[in-house]
């Protein structure tokens, strides 16, 4: 593998380990509110959102173990694990598809 790519990959691993820093930020991104937050803000949950909300349940909502405890340690572990899953799935998928279609 190219040295540059290898070093960039090492940089990525460092970012993955540091990922739980992203948990420190409190508050929700504009437009990404959950139903409860919307109820607090507006006094109601927009009808369409309420219906669409049940369309799909993610296996690891909010990068946490479903039903797991909410301690910072546990959340951090789940967050790093999420980063690992993300990297393996995104990287792996594109690597194999890429290898398949690439011109040498």
């Amino acid at each position, binding site marked *: 593998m190219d040295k540059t790519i290898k070093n960039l990959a090492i940089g990525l691993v460092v970012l993955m380990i540091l990922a739980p820093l992203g948990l420190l930020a*409190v508050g929700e*991104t504009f*437009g990404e509110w959950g139903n409860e937050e*919307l109820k607090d803000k507006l006094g109601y949950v927009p009808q369409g*959102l309420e219906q669409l909300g049940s369309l799909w349940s993610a296996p690891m909502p909010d990068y946490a173990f479903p039903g797991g405890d909410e301690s910072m340690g546990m959340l951090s572990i789940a967050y790093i694990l999420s980063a690992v899953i993300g990297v393996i799935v*995104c990287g792996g998928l594109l690597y194999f598809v*890429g290898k398949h279609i690439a011109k*040498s």
Partner: protein
Amino acid sequence: MIPIWYYAGKKMSNELRSRQVPLLALAAAFSFVIMMFNVPIPGGSTGHAVGGAIIGIVLGPWAGVIAISVALILQALVFGDGGITAIAANCFNMGVVMPFVGYYVYKAISGNSEITSSRRVIAAAIAGYLSLTIAAFCTGVEFGLQPILNHTADGVPLYMPYPMSVTVPAMLGEHVLGFSFLEALITALIFAYIQRTDTTILYGENSPLQKKKQKLGASA
């Protein structure tokens, strides 16, 4: 989004070199992880960088579409982030707008400067800043369109409760003053690193087309 993905896929199967494959995989993984770094801003909201500009600059905008889209779709499906009904909008704003704005701003400012010049680092930083800012603006407009397009008979919004006059300033403001600086920094840092180590991995450098041009130039 489906025609854009289709075209991007076609483009990639024609252009992708096997040397770029690890970089493509890395780009998608990087984009996924960088979006996990939520950054707080005053006012109680949070946001994040995307890495869209640097991916567009390094891999070319079409490969950027694929890499960022894969990260966004995984986020929505597995982690409930962004949401499956917003996949197309998110992929357009972050997956299409960002690598294209990033790549062309970088190209325009770089001009004919040396590949190792510091002008290109500045170009990368501005590309990062503008790419996220314009993506945020698009998102704000899309949010603002929602209550106009989708509301109940008596005018209660079905999905996005806030009007354009709130969504555009909110999205634009927090990015112009905050997150876009982070995107600029990330873009410039990674670009400067590649500049110092191996510029041949950059999109358009050493491509078959460019070699052909150089040959034509030499023989003329």
